[in-house]
Protein backbone atom coordinates (compact mmCIF):
# COMPACT_ATOMS: atom_id res chain seq x y z
CA UNK A 1 0.00 0.00 0.00
CA UNK A 2 2.88 2.37 0.82
CA UNK A 3 4.36 1.52 -2.54
CA UNK A 4 1.11 2.50 -4.17
CA UNK A 5 0.89 5.87 -2.45
CA UNK A 6 4.48 6.70 -3.42
CA UNK A 7 3.81 5.63 -6.97
CA UNK A 8 0.65 7.70 -6.99
CA UNK A 9 2.55 10.81 -5.97
CA UNK A 10 5.15 10.11 -8.66
CA UNK A 11 2.48 9.64 -11.31
CA UNK A 12 0.62 12.75 -10.21
CA UNK A 13 3.84 14.73 -10.38
CA UNK A 14 4.73 13.54 -13.87
CA UNK A 15 1.17 14.15 -15.08
CA UNK A 16 1.35 17.69 -13.75
CA UNK A 17 4.69 18.16 -15.54
CA UNK A 18 3.05 16.98 -18.77
CA UNK A 19 0.23 19.44 -18.32
CA UNK A 20 2.38 22.41 -17.25
CA UNK A 21 3.09 23.67 -20.80
CA UNK A 22 -0.62 23.49 -21.65
CA UNK A 23 -1.54 25.46 -18.54
CA UNK A 24 1.09 28.13 -19.24
CA UNK A 25 -0.07 28.54 -22.86
CA UNK A 26 -3.72 28.71 -21.81
CA UNK A 27 -3.02 31.27 -19.10
CA UNK A 28 -0.89 33.49 -21.35
CA UNK A 29 -3.46 33.59 -24.10
CA UNK A 30 -6.34 33.95 -21.69
CA UNK A 31 -4.78 36.82 -19.74
CA UNK A 32 -2.90 38.67 -22.47
CA UNK A 33 -5.12 38.33 -25.51
CA UNK A 34 -8.63 37.30 -24.54
CA UNK A 35 -8.76 39.26 -21.27
CA UNK A 36 -12.03 37.62 -20.38
CA UNK A 37 -12.67 35.11 -17.65
CA UNK A 38 -14.23 31.95 -19.03
CA UNK A 39 -17.67 31.19 -17.54
CA UNK A 40 -17.83 28.64 -14.72
CA UNK A 41 -14.16 29.08 -13.92
CA UNK A 42 -14.42 27.15 -10.68
CA UNK A 43 -16.13 24.22 -12.33
CA UNK A 44 -13.52 24.12 -15.07
CA UNK A 45 -10.72 24.19 -12.52
CA UNK A 46 -12.39 21.44 -10.50
CA UNK A 47 -12.87 19.36 -13.62
CA UNK A 48 -9.23 19.81 -14.63
CA UNK A 49 -8.11 18.62 -11.20
CA UNK A 50 -10.36 15.58 -11.60
CA UNK A 51 -8.78 14.88 -15.00
CA UNK A 52 -5.29 15.07 -13.53
CA UNK A 53 -6.02 12.88 -10.53
CA UNK A 54 -8.00 10.45 -12.65
CA UNK A 55 -5.25 10.11 -15.24
CA UNK A 56 -2.60 9.63 -12.55
CA UNK A 57 -4.65 6.92 -10.83
CA UNK A 58 -5.35 5.28 -14.16
CA UNK A 59 -1.68 5.18 -15.16
CA UNK A 60 -0.49 3.99 -11.79
CA UNK A 61 -3.05 1.19 -11.78
CA UNK A 62 -2.07 0.07 -15.27
CA UNK A 63 1.62 0.30 -14.47
CA UNK A 64 1.20 -1.85 -11.36
CA UNK A 65 -1.44 -4.31 -12.41
CA UNK A 66 -1.58 -4.94 -16.11
CA UNK A 67 1.47 -3.72 -17.96
CA UNK A 68 3.96 -6.03 -16.21
CA UNK A 69 1.85 -9.06 -17.09
CA UNK A 70 1.28 -7.76 -20.59
CA UNK A 71 4.98 -7.24 -21.17
CA UNK A 72 5.93 -10.60 -19.69
CA UNK A 73 3.36 -12.30 -21.85
CA UNK A 74 4.58 -10.51 -24.96
CA UNK A 75 8.11 -11.72 -24.29
CA UNK A 76 6.93 -15.24 -23.42
CA UNK A 77 4.83 -15.53 -26.54
CA UNK A 78 7.70 -14.35 -28.72
CA UNK A 79 10.31 -16.52 -26.97
CA UNK A 80 11.86 -19.29 -29.10
CA UNK A 81 10.77 -21.95 -26.55
CA UNK A 82 7.10 -21.19 -27.16
CA UNK A 83 7.55 -21.63 -30.90
CA UNK A 84 9.83 -24.65 -30.60
CA UNK A 85 13.56 -24.03 -30.79
CA UNK A 86 14.28 -26.85 -33.24
CA UNK A 87 11.92 -25.33 -35.76
CA UNK A 88 13.65 -22.00 -35.48
CA UNK A 89 16.93 -23.60 -36.46
CA UNK A 90 15.84 -24.00 -40.06
CA UNK A 91 14.19 -20.58 -40.35
CA UNK A 92 10.73 -19.44 -39.29
CA UNK A 93 7.50 -19.48 -41.17
CA UNK A 94 4.85 -16.90 -40.51
CA UNK A 95 2.40 -19.51 -39.17
CA UNK A 96 4.76 -20.45 -36.31
CA UNK A 97 3.55 -17.32 -34.57
CA UNK A 98 -0.21 -17.83 -34.81
CA UNK A 99 -0.82 -17.54 -31.02
CA UNK A 100 1.13 -14.30 -31.05
CA UNK A 101 -1.01 -12.79 -33.81
CA UNK A 102 -4.10 -13.72 -31.81
CA UNK A 103 -2.64 -12.16 -28.67
CA UNK A 104 -1.59 -9.01 -30.54
CA UNK A 105 -5.04 -8.58 -32.06
CA UNK A 106 -6.83 -9.27 -28.77
CA UNK A 107 -4.65 -6.96 -26.70
CA UNK A 108 -4.79 -4.25 -29.39
CA UNK A 109 -8.58 -4.41 -29.29
CA UNK A 110 -8.76 -4.46 -25.49
CA UNK A 111 -6.34 -1.60 -24.87
CA UNK A 112 -8.06 0.58 -27.46
CA UNK A 113 -11.45 0.09 -25.83
CA UNK A 114 -9.94 1.39 -22.55
CA UNK A 115 -8.10 4.32 -24.17
CA UNK A 116 -9.23 7.54 -22.40
CA UNK A 117 -8.46 9.82 -25.38
CA UNK A 118 -10.73 7.72 -27.57
CA UNK A 119 -13.52 7.96 -24.97
CA UNK A 120 -13.15 11.75 -25.13
CA UNK A 121 -13.39 11.87 -28.91
CA UNK A 122 -16.35 9.46 -28.89
CA UNK A 123 -18.26 11.65 -26.40
CA UNK A 124 -17.46 14.76 -28.44
CA UNK A 125 -18.57 13.04 -31.65
CA UNK A 126 -21.87 12.07 -30.03
CA UNK A 127 -22.46 15.67 -28.91
CA UNK A 128 -21.43 17.22 -32.22
CA UNK A 129 -23.57 14.85 -34.26
CA UNK A 130 -26.57 15.23 -31.97
CA UNK A 131 -26.42 11.56 -31.03
CA UNK A 132 -26.13 10.15 -34.57
CA UNK A 133 -22.65 8.76 -33.87
CA UNK A 134 -22.95 6.18 -31.15
CA UNK A 135 -19.88 6.37 -28.86
CA UNK A 136 -19.75 2.63 -28.23
CA UNK A 137 -20.07 1.81 -31.92
CA UNK A 138 -17.25 4.20 -32.79
CA UNK A 139 -14.99 2.76 -30.12
CA UNK A 140 -15.61 -0.82 -31.21
CA UNK A 141 -14.93 0.11 -34.85
CA UNK A 142 -11.66 1.81 -33.91
CA UNK A 143 -10.65 -1.12 -31.68
CA UNK A 144 -11.27 -3.60 -34.50
CA UNK A 145 -9.06 -1.47 -36.73
CA UNK A 146 -6.25 -1.46 -34.17
CA UNK A 147 -6.60 -5.23 -33.69
CA UNK A 148 -6.23 -5.93 -37.41
CA UNK A 149 -3.42 -3.40 -37.70
CA UNK A 150 -1.34 -4.75 -34.84
CA UNK A 151 -1.76 -8.37 -35.96
CA UNK A 152 -0.72 -7.43 -39.50
CA UNK A 153 2.20 -5.45 -38.10
CA UNK A 154 3.40 -8.58 -36.25
CA UNK A 155 3.04 -10.58 -39.46
CA UNK A 156 5.21 -7.99 -41.17
CA UNK A 157 7.93 -8.23 -38.53
CA UNK A 158 7.96 -12.05 -38.78
CA UNK A 159 8.07 -12.10 -42.56
CA UNK A 160 10.42 -9.11 -42.78
CA UNK A 161 8.56 -7.51 -45.68
CA UNK A 162 9.12 -3.76 -46.17
CA UNK A 163 6.95 -1.47 -44.04
CA UNK A 164 6.22 1.15 -46.75
CA UNK A 165 4.38 -1.40 -48.93
CA UNK A 166 1.82 -2.04 -46.21
CA UNK A 167 1.37 1.58 -45.20
CA UNK A 168 1.10 2.86 -48.76
CA UNK A 169 -1.34 0.07 -49.66
CA UNK A 170 -3.51 1.03 -46.69
CA UNK A 171 -3.34 4.69 -47.75
CA UNK A 172 -4.76 3.65 -51.11
CA UNK A 173 -7.59 1.81 -49.33
CA UNK A 174 -8.23 4.91 -47.16
CA UNK A 175 -8.39 7.14 -50.26
CA UNK A 176 -10.81 4.77 -52.03
CA UNK A 177 -13.06 4.50 -48.95
CA UNK A 178 -12.99 8.28 -48.43
CA UNK A 179 -14.81 8.80 -51.71
CA UNK A 180 -17.35 6.09 -50.91
CA UNK A 181 -18.15 7.27 -47.36
CA UNK A 182 -20.49 10.06 -46.32
CA UNK A 183 -18.81 13.44 -45.97
CA UNK A 184 -19.74 13.91 -42.32
CA UNK A 185 -17.85 10.86 -41.08
CA UNK A 186 -14.56 11.46 -42.96
CA UNK A 187 -12.94 14.00 -40.55
CA UNK A 188 -13.91 11.89 -37.55
CA UNK A 189 -12.47 8.78 -39.18
CA UNK A 190 -9.18 10.55 -39.93
CA UNK A 191 -9.04 11.77 -36.33
CA UNK A 192 -9.64 8.32 -34.92
CA UNK A 193 -6.37 7.21 -36.49
CA UNK A 194 -4.44 9.60 -34.27
CA UNK A 195 -6.18 9.07 -30.96
CA UNK A 196 -5.87 5.30 -30.78
CA UNK A 197 -2.23 5.22 -29.90
CA UNK A 198 -1.98 6.85 -26.52
CA UNK A 199 -1.31 6.00 -22.90
CA UNK A 200 -2.64 2.44 -22.85
CA UNK A 201 -1.90 1.05 -26.29
CA UNK A 202 1.62 2.31 -26.98
CA UNK A 203 3.47 0.60 -24.09
CA UNK A 204 1.94 -2.83 -24.67
CA UNK A 205 2.18 -2.70 -28.45
CA UNK A 206 5.78 -1.44 -28.29
CA UNK A 207 6.64 -4.36 -25.98
CA UNK A 208 5.22 -6.84 -28.50
CA UNK A 209 7.16 -5.26 -31.36
CA UNK A 210 10.40 -5.17 -29.42
CA UNK A 211 10.06 -8.76 -28.17
CA UNK A 212 9.17 -10.06 -31.61
CA UNK A 213 11.94 -8.25 -33.45
CA UNK A 214 14.58 -9.45 -30.99
CA UNK A 215 13.45 -13.11 -31.03
CA UNK A 216 12.86 -13.70 -34.74
CA UNK A 217 16.23 -14.59 -36.30
CA UNK A 218 17.46 -12.04 -38.82
CA UNK A 219 15.43 -9.12 -37.43
CA UNK A 220 16.99 -6.22 -35.60
CA UNK A 221 14.92 -4.80 -32.73
CA UNK A 222 16.16 -1.34 -33.62
CA UNK A 223 15.11 -1.33 -37.23
CA UNK A 224 12.21 -3.82 -37.35
CA UNK A 225 10.75 -2.92 -33.96
CA UNK A 226 9.31 0.26 -35.44
CA UNK A 227 6.13 0.29 -37.45
CA UNK A 228 3.51 -1.29 -35.19
CA UNK A 229 2.23 2.12 -34.07
CA UNK A 230 2.00 3.19 -37.70
CA UNK A 231 -0.20 0.15 -38.40
CA UNK A 232 -2.30 0.93 -35.34
CA UNK A 233 -2.89 4.48 -36.58
CA UNK A 234 -3.82 3.72 -40.19
CA UNK A 235 -6.16 0.76 -39.80
CA UNK A 236 -8.71 2.50 -37.53
CA UNK A 237 -9.30 5.01 -40.35
CA UNK A 238 -10.16 2.11 -42.65
CA UNK A 239 -12.37 0.39 -40.07
CA UNK A 240 -14.31 3.56 -39.15
CA UNK A 241 -14.88 4.46 -42.80
CA UNK A 242 -15.85 0.87 -43.53
CA UNK A 243 -18.20 0.80 -40.55
CA UNK A 244 -19.96 3.97 -41.68
CA UNK A 245 -20.28 2.72 -45.26
CA UNK A 246 -21.69 -0.57 -44.02
CA UNK A 247 -24.07 1.18 -41.61
CA UNK A 248 -25.44 3.55 -44.24
CA UNK A 249 -25.75 0.69 -46.74
CA UNK A 250 -27.70 -1.37 -44.21
CA UNK A 251 -30.01 1.50 -43.28
CA UNK A 252 -30.65 2.26 -46.95
CA UNK A 253 -31.51 -1.38 -47.57
CA UNK A 254 -33.83 -1.39 -44.58
CA UNK A 255 -35.50 1.80 -45.77
CA UNK A 256 -36.09 0.49 -49.28
CA UNK A 257 -37.44 -2.76 -47.85
CA UNK A 258 -39.82 -1.11 -45.36
CA UNK A 259 -40.58 2.36 -46.69
CA UNK A 260 -43.44 3.03 -44.28
CA UNK A 261 -41.44 2.37 -41.15
CA UNK A 262 -38.61 4.57 -42.29
CA UNK A 263 -40.92 7.55 -42.59
CA UNK A 264 -42.39 7.31 -39.12
Amino acid at each position, binding site marked *: MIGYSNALIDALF*STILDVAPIVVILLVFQLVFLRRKPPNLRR*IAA*GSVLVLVGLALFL*IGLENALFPIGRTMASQLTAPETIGAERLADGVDWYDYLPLYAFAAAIGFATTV*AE*PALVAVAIKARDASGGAVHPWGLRIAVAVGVAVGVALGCFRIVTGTPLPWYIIASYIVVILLTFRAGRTIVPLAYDSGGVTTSTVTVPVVAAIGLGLASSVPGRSPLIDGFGLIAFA*SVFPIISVLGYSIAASWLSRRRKSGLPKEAES
Partner: protein
Amino acid sequence: MIVPFNRRLRCAAEGRCANLTYGGPTSTPYPSQLRNRLKCPPKVVTRHLVAILRLNVGALRDLAPIVLVIAFFQIVVLRQPFPDLLSVLVGLLCVILGLTLFIQGLESGLFPLGEALAQGFAQKGNIVILLAFGFCLGFGTTIAEPALIAIAAEAAAVAAEAGAIIDDDSARSTYALELRLVVAVSVGAAIVVGILRILKGWPIHYLIIGGYLLVTAMTAFAPAEIVGVAYDSGGVTTSTITVPLVTALGVGLATSIRGRNPMTDGFGLIAFASLTPMICVLAYGMAAQ
Protein backbone atom coordinates in the same frame (compact mmCIF):
# COMPACT_ATOMS: atom_id res chain seq x y z
CA MET B 1 -14.94 21.14 -6.52
CA ILE B 2 -17.19 18.73 -4.74
CA VAL B 3 -20.45 20.41 -5.61
CA PRO B 4 -20.93 19.59 -9.30
CA PHE B 5 -19.56 16.12 -8.86
CA ASN B 6 -21.88 15.38 -5.96
CA ARG B 7 -24.87 16.80 -7.71
CA ARG B 8 -24.09 14.64 -10.66
CA LEU B 9 -23.82 11.58 -8.43
CA ARG B 10 -27.17 12.35 -6.87
CA CYS B 11 -28.73 12.77 -10.26
CA ALA B 12 -27.30 9.45 -11.31
CA ALA B 13 -28.69 7.85 -8.15
CA GLU B 14 -32.10 9.25 -8.95
CA GLY B 15 -31.78 7.76 -12.40
CA ARG B 16 -33.51 10.85 -13.71
CA CYS B 17 -30.87 11.92 -16.11
CA ALA B 18 -29.53 8.87 -17.83
CA ASN B 19 -27.19 10.89 -20.00
CA LEU B 20 -25.25 12.08 -16.97
CA THR B 21 -24.14 8.62 -16.04
CA TYR B 22 -20.87 7.56 -17.52
CA GLY B 23 -21.06 6.40 -21.10
CA GLY B 24 -24.82 6.15 -20.96
CA PRO B 25 -27.24 6.85 -23.78
CA THR B 26 -27.95 10.44 -24.58
CA SER B 27 -31.03 12.42 -25.41
CA THR B 28 -29.67 15.96 -25.34
CA PRO B 29 -26.31 17.11 -26.61
CA TYR B 30 -25.58 19.45 -23.70
CA PRO B 31 -25.99 17.76 -20.32
CA SER B 32 -24.59 20.79 -18.48
CA GLN B 33 -27.69 22.85 -19.26
CA LEU B 34 -29.94 20.03 -18.19
CA ARG B 35 -28.05 19.53 -14.96
CA ASN B 36 -28.52 23.13 -13.88
CA ARG B 37 -32.27 22.82 -14.20
CA LEU B 38 -32.52 19.67 -12.11
CA LYS B 39 -33.24 20.02 -8.45
CA CYS B 40 -32.18 16.87 -6.70
CA PRO B 41 -33.54 15.91 -3.27
CA PRO B 42 -31.26 15.76 -0.21
CA LYS B 43 -28.45 13.28 -0.24
CA VAL B 44 -28.77 9.81 1.15
CA VAL B 45 -25.71 7.73 1.83
CA THR B 46 -26.97 4.59 0.13
CA ARG B 47 -27.95 6.56 -2.92
CA HIS B 48 -24.44 7.91 -3.16
CA LEU B 49 -23.03 4.44 -3.01
CA VAL B 50 -25.38 3.24 -5.74
CA ALA B 51 -24.46 6.21 -7.88
CA ILE B 52 -20.73 5.67 -7.51
CA LEU B 53 -21.21 2.03 -8.41
CA ARG B 54 -23.24 2.99 -11.43
CA LEU B 55 -20.56 5.38 -12.64
CA ASN B 56 -17.94 2.71 -12.13
CA VAL B 57 -19.86 0.15 -14.16
CA GLY B 58 -18.94 2.05 -17.32
CA ALA B 59 -15.26 1.99 -16.43
CA LEU B 60 -15.49 -1.69 -15.54
CA ARG B 61 -17.00 -2.45 -18.92
CA ASP B 62 -14.15 -0.58 -20.60
CA LEU B 63 -11.52 -2.57 -18.76
CA ALA B 64 -13.15 -5.98 -18.95
CA PRO B 65 -11.59 -6.79 -22.36
CA ILE B 66 -8.01 -6.22 -21.12
CA VAL B 67 -8.55 -8.37 -18.06
CA LEU B 68 -10.21 -11.12 -20.09
CA VAL B 69 -7.50 -11.15 -22.76
CA ILE B 70 -4.66 -11.28 -20.25
CA ALA B 71 -6.38 -13.90 -18.10
CA PHE B 72 -7.17 -16.06 -21.13
CA PHE B 73 -3.67 -16.04 -22.55
CA GLN B 74 -2.10 -16.43 -19.14
CA ILE B 75 -4.19 -19.42 -18.06
CA VAL B 76 -5.18 -21.16 -21.30
CA VAL B 77 -2.31 -20.49 -23.71
CA LEU B 78 0.74 -20.04 -21.48
CA ARG B 79 -0.71 -22.22 -18.66
CA GLN B 80 0.80 -20.18 -15.86
CA PRO B 81 -0.77 -18.97 -12.61
CA PHE B 82 -1.67 -15.32 -12.15
CA PRO B 83 1.25 -13.63 -10.34
CA ASP B 84 0.53 -11.49 -7.29
CA LEU B 85 -3.25 -11.41 -7.47
CA LEU B 86 -3.71 -8.86 -4.68
CA SER B 87 -1.50 -6.26 -6.35
CA VAL B 88 -3.35 -6.79 -9.61
CA LEU B 89 -6.72 -6.27 -7.93
CA VAL B 90 -5.60 -3.07 -6.19
CA GLY B 91 -4.20 -1.81 -9.48
CA LEU B 92 -7.47 -2.58 -11.22
CA LEU B 93 -9.38 -0.60 -8.59
CA CYS B 94 -7.05 2.35 -9.21
CA VAL B 95 -7.63 2.08 -12.95
CA ILE B 96 -11.41 1.96 -12.60
CA LEU B 97 -11.48 4.90 -10.18
CA GLY B 98 -9.06 6.85 -12.36
CA LEU B 99 -11.05 6.32 -15.55
CA THR B 100 -14.27 7.37 -13.78
CA LEU B 101 -12.67 10.58 -12.46
CA PHE B 102 -11.12 11.30 -15.85
CA ILE B 103 -14.47 11.10 -17.64
CA GLN B 104 -16.09 13.27 -14.95
CA GLY B 105 -13.37 15.89 -15.27
CA LEU B 106 -13.51 15.75 -19.05
CA GLU B 107 -17.11 16.89 -19.21
CA SER B 108 -16.88 19.53 -16.49
CA GLY B 109 -13.31 20.70 -17.11
CA LEU B 110 -11.52 20.12 -20.40
CA PHE B 111 -14.48 20.25 -22.79
CA PRO B 112 -15.92 23.54 -21.40
CA LEU B 113 -12.41 24.98 -21.37
CA GLY B 114 -11.85 24.18 -25.04
CA GLU B 115 -15.28 25.52 -25.95
CA ALA B 116 -14.78 28.73 -23.93
CA LEU B 117 -11.45 29.30 -25.70
CA ALA B 118 -13.01 28.70 -29.09
CA GLN B 119 -15.84 31.13 -28.34
CA GLY B 120 -13.41 33.72 -26.98
CA PHE B 121 -11.27 33.57 -30.11
CA ALA B 122 -14.29 33.60 -32.40
CA GLN B 123 -15.65 36.74 -30.70
CA LYS B 124 -12.27 38.40 -30.74
CA GLY B 125 -12.00 37.75 -34.45
CA ASN B 126 -8.20 38.01 -34.52
CA ILE B 127 -7.01 35.17 -36.74
CA VAL B 128 -3.30 35.76 -36.11
CA ILE B 129 -3.67 35.30 -32.34
CA LEU B 130 -5.83 32.23 -32.86
CA LEU B 131 -3.23 30.67 -35.15
CA ALA B 132 -0.43 31.60 -32.75
CA PHE B 133 -2.37 29.93 -29.96
CA GLY B 134 -2.84 26.81 -32.08
CA PHE B 135 0.86 26.65 -32.87
CA CYS B 136 1.86 27.08 -29.22
CA LEU B 137 -0.61 24.44 -28.09
CA GLY B 138 0.66 21.91 -30.64
CA PHE B 139 4.34 22.68 -30.03
CA GLY B 140 4.09 22.91 -26.23
CA THR B 141 2.22 19.67 -25.71
CA THR B 142 4.39 17.68 -28.12
CA ILE B 143 7.87 18.73 -27.01
CA ALA B 144 7.26 17.28 -23.51
CA GLU B 145 5.43 14.15 -24.65
CA PRO B 146 7.02 11.11 -22.92
CA ALA B 147 6.24 8.70 -25.77
CA LEU B 148 8.01 11.04 -28.19
CA ILE B 149 11.06 11.33 -25.94
CA ALA B 150 11.31 7.54 -25.85
CA ILE B 151 10.91 7.12 -29.59
CA ALA B 152 13.43 9.90 -30.35
CA ALA B 153 16.06 8.18 -28.21
CA GLU B 154 15.47 4.88 -30.01
CA ALA B 155 15.62 6.63 -33.37
CA ALA B 156 18.98 8.13 -32.46
CA ALA B 157 20.27 4.63 -31.63
CA VAL B 158 19.01 3.38 -35.01
CA ALA B 159 20.69 6.24 -36.84
CA ALA B 160 23.97 5.64 -34.99
CA GLU B 161 23.88 1.95 -35.87
CA ALA B 162 23.14 2.70 -39.51
CA GLY B 163 26.10 5.08 -39.60
CA ALA B 164 24.07 8.21 -40.33
CA ILE B 165 25.54 9.97 -37.31
CA ILE B 166 28.66 9.43 -35.21
CA ASP B 167 28.07 6.80 -32.54
CA ASP B 168 28.67 8.76 -29.34
CA ASP B 169 26.44 10.18 -26.63
CA SER B 170 26.53 13.84 -27.63
CA ALA B 171 25.80 13.17 -31.30
CA ARG B 172 22.94 10.87 -30.33
CA SER B 173 21.35 13.31 -27.88
CA THR B 174 21.64 16.16 -30.41
CA TYR B 175 19.92 13.96 -32.99
CA ALA B 176 17.15 13.01 -30.55
CA LEU B 177 16.59 16.63 -29.52
CA GLU B 178 16.49 17.81 -33.14
CA LEU B 179 14.03 15.08 -33.97
CA ARG B 180 11.76 16.12 -31.08
CA LEU B 181 11.94 19.76 -32.18
CA VAL B 182 11.07 18.77 -35.75
CA VAL B 183 8.06 16.76 -34.58
CA ALA B 184 6.89 19.50 -32.18
CA VAL B 185 7.14 22.20 -34.87
CA SER B 186 5.28 19.96 -37.28
CA VAL B 187 2.46 19.36 -34.78
CA GLY B 188 2.22 23.11 -34.18
CA ALA B 189 2.05 23.67 -37.93
CA ALA B 190 -0.58 20.93 -38.17
CA ILE B 191 -2.87 22.67 -35.69
CA VAL B 192 -2.38 25.96 -37.60
CA VAL B 193 -3.34 24.30 -40.90
CA GLY B 194 -6.25 22.53 -39.20
CA ILE B 195 -7.61 25.77 -37.71
CA LEU B 196 -7.22 27.53 -41.07
CA ARG B 197 -9.17 24.70 -42.64
CA ILE B 198 -12.00 25.14 -40.12
CA LEU B 199 -12.07 28.90 -40.72
CA LYS B 200 -12.06 28.56 -44.52
CA GLY B 201 -14.19 25.43 -44.65
CA TRP B 202 -11.80 23.51 -46.93
CA PRO B 203 -12.74 19.86 -47.39
CA ILE B 204 -10.39 17.75 -45.30
CA HIS B 205 -9.83 14.81 -47.61
CA TYR B 206 -7.94 16.74 -50.32
CA LEU B 207 -5.43 17.97 -47.73
CA ILE B 208 -5.02 14.56 -46.10
CA ILE B 209 -4.77 12.70 -49.40
CA GLY B 210 -2.22 15.26 -50.58
CA GLY B 211 -0.28 14.54 -47.41
CA TYR B 212 -0.45 10.80 -48.06
CA LEU B 213 0.90 11.29 -51.58
CA LEU B 214 3.72 13.42 -50.19
CA VAL B 215 4.56 10.74 -47.61
CA THR B 216 4.57 8.09 -50.35
CA ALA B 217 6.84 10.13 -52.59
CA MET B 218 9.23 11.01 -49.76
CA THR B 219 9.44 7.38 -48.62
CA ALA B 220 11.14 6.55 -51.90
CA PHE B 221 13.92 9.08 -51.29
CA ALA B 222 14.37 9.02 -47.51
CA PRO B 223 17.04 6.80 -45.92
CA ALA B 224 15.56 3.40 -45.01
CA GLU B 225 16.34 3.60 -41.29
CA ILE B 226 14.26 6.74 -40.76
CA VAL B 227 11.10 5.44 -42.47
CA GLY B 228 9.88 3.31 -39.55
CA VAL B 229 10.58 6.11 -37.06
CA ALA B 230 8.76 8.61 -39.26
CA TYR B 231 5.68 6.42 -39.66
CA ASP B 232 5.50 5.78 -35.91
CA SER B 233 6.05 9.42 -34.97
CA GLY B 234 2.65 10.29 -36.41
CA GLY B 235 0.91 8.11 -33.88
CA VAL B 236 2.67 9.04 -30.67
CA THR B 237 2.24 12.79 -30.76
CA THR B 238 -1.28 13.13 -29.45
CA SER B 239 -1.51 12.67 -25.69
CA THR B 240 -4.52 11.95 -23.53
CA ILE B 241 -4.93 15.52 -22.35
CA THR B 242 -4.23 17.22 -25.68
CA VAL B 243 -6.82 15.19 -27.57
CA PRO B 244 -9.91 16.31 -25.58
CA LEU B 245 -8.72 19.91 -25.51
CA VAL B 246 -7.94 20.10 -29.23
CA THR B 247 -11.13 18.27 -30.16
CA ALA B 248 -13.25 20.63 -28.03
CA LEU B 249 -11.43 23.61 -29.58
CA GLY B 250 -12.10 22.42 -33.13
CA VAL B 251 -15.74 21.53 -32.53
CA GLY B 252 -16.25 24.77 -30.58
CA LEU B 253 -14.77 26.84 -33.44
CA ALA B 254 -16.91 25.09 -36.02
CA THR B 255 -19.98 25.64 -33.83
CA SER B 256 -19.38 29.36 -33.29
CA ILE B 257 -18.56 30.22 -36.90
CA ARG B 258 -21.62 30.59 -39.08
CA GLY B 259 -21.82 28.17 -41.98
CA ARG B 260 -19.55 25.55 -40.42
CA ASN B 261 -20.79 22.15 -39.36
CA PRO B 262 -19.34 20.68 -36.14
CA MET B 263 -19.11 17.21 -37.70
CA THR B 264 -17.64 18.02 -41.14
CA ASP B 265 -15.49 20.96 -40.03
CA GLY B 266 -14.93 20.52 -36.30
CA PHE B 267 -13.00 17.25 -36.41
CA GLY B 268 -9.73 16.79 -38.25
CA LEU B 269 -7.22 18.69 -36.12
CA ILE B 270 -5.81 15.45 -34.72
CA ALA B 271 -5.65 13.95 -38.21
CA PHE B 272 -3.31 16.76 -39.26
CA ALA B 273 -1.33 16.40 -36.05
CA SER B 274 -0.62 12.77 -36.89
CA LEU B 275 0.16 13.38 -40.57
CA THR B 276 2.62 16.30 -40.56
CA PRO B 277 5.16 14.66 -38.19
CA MET B 278 5.59 11.87 -40.75
CA ILE B 279 6.34 14.38 -43.51
CA CYS B 280 8.66 16.46 -41.36
CA VAL B 281 10.61 13.51 -39.94
CA LEU B 282 11.09 12.10 -43.46
CA ALA B 283 12.31 15.54 -44.56
CA TYR B 284 14.64 15.67 -41.57
CA GLY B 285 16.03 12.24 -42.45
CA MET B 286 16.67 13.36 -46.01
CA ALA B 287 18.34 16.55 -44.83
CA ALA B 288 20.54 14.75 -42.26
CA GLN B 289 21.73 12.30 -44.89
